[in-house]
């Protein structure tokens, strides 16, 4: 049992580069996007708020698996139709050659990017996580007492200047719920084996197809728990450091 366990582990480790690169890239870009979106959400203009609200509803309301499939297999369907019926392109080209050329080149490059399953998985994870993280950050921003804003304006700061003071404060408060989201992204990468990526879960299925051994799942679980354990320790240290000003009191 134990020697087999390490044999499986040595195979499963081959999937680590994809699992880790996807998690890190997804977490970082989702974090940046969601900070931007939660700042935009403070504004009271409907044409800014409504599209963001729709984006959040769509990506928190549908399963990650569905998003992965739509992003990976969806554009491929259009590619086929685009090639087979070029009539649409000819008509478009007749009316507006330059724009047609630009759009065509753009679609060409987009398609090349979408050909990589890694990019599709990254895109799905980022958008999904950005939607959830925006909710977390926006909630934290709303939870900042009104007195903070008033204090800033009393000091003669405008909206942008006050935001520079309040945003870091709000983000620090959001860290504990955000660490949950980070772990969710890592676990979300396990779904990417459905779009041909050989991550840890992909190797798990490959081994399971050969040996049908229960131990394989235990080994896979151990790898994920190791990654997530490490991540939650890092997040806890980060939180301690960021909220040091509160703990000293």
């Amino acid at each position, binding site marked *: 049992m134990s020697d087999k366990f390490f044999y499986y582990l040595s195979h499963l480790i081959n999937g680590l580069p994809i699992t880790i690169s996807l998690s890190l890239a997804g977490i970082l870009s989702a974090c940046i996007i969601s900070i931007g979106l939660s700042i935009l959400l403070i504004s009271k203009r409907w044409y800014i708020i409504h599209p963001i609200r729709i984006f959040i509803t769509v990506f928190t309301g549908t399963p990650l698996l569905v998003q992965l499939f739509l992003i990976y*297999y969806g554009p491929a369907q259009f590619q086929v139709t685009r090639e087979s019926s070029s009539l649409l392109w000819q008509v478009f080209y007749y009316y507006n050659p330059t724009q047609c050329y630009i759009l065509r080149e753009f679609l060409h490059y987009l398609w090349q990017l979408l050909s990589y399953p890694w990019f599709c998985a990254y895109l799905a994870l980022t958008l999904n996580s950005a939607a959830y993280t925006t909710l977390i950050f926006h909630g934290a921003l709303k939870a900042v007492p009104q007195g903070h804003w008033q204090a800033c304006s009393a000091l003669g700061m405008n909206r942008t200047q006050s935001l520079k003071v309040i945003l870091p404060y709000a983000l620090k408060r959001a860290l504990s719920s955000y660490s949950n989201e980070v772990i969710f992204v890592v676990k979300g990468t396990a779904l990417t084996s459905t779009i041909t990526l050989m991550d840890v879960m992909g190797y798990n299925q490959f081994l399971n197809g050969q040996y049908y051994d229960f131990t394989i799942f235990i080994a896979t679980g151990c790898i994920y728990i190791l990654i997530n354990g490490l991540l939650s320790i890092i997040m806890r240290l980060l939180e301690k450091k960021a909220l040091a000003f509160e703990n000293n009191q």
Partner: protein
Amino acid sequence: MKKIFLIAALTGAVFTASAKDINFGLEATYAPYEFYDDNNILVGFDIDIANKICQELNYTCKFTNQSFDSLIPSLKTRRIDASISALDMTPERREQVDFSQSYYTNMAQFIGLSGHLESLNSISELNQKRVGVQNGTTLQKYLVDKFPKINIVSYDSYQYAVLDLKANRIDAILIDSAAASEWFKKEPSLVGIGEKITDPEYIGSGLGIAVRKGNSVLLDQFNQVLTKMKADGSYDQIYAKWFN
């Protein structure tokens, strides 16, 4: 009072009847072996064989559709009684389950997209190219062991591999030859490339019905019926229905 007795008797009858069920596990995206037809009814070569066996043994056949790599685990954990899902009888699988006698000798074939990759003189021409297979199958293990230079792309199901082949994400697919000819009927843009492949260690050891290890009662019954079917011509009828 009579009514209560009647109900009790009837429920008793229902439960004794259900004891004679055989629950077959399979993965139903693999025409012509097992698939859902246009009317969403489960049909195929395996299904007809299983139904014939149940008819001979006076059992009721039940089919459970599940993912391919979970078939043998479900068998071991008693969620299903048998599995008939175009299972190659490989040495690794023989360690986990018992197989009936072979009911079909299969081959494998590469398929490609017409206008792109149409001919193949030797498999090594596919080196550095992307070839799709189903994750957890013998074909995947065959490619991994024998042709490590081929870029193997693993799919949950062949439907997605065909979608990706048509979108030029992969160059070829390795699939069972009978399943390949079904795909040719459905998708005219697909062509078979190269010779059909057999390799006694991986492909062509025959398909068998899997039962839990030690379940010799069911295994003997399956073998008896299969022998009888091959002798009295009912096997040939089913064979002709699906493979000609």
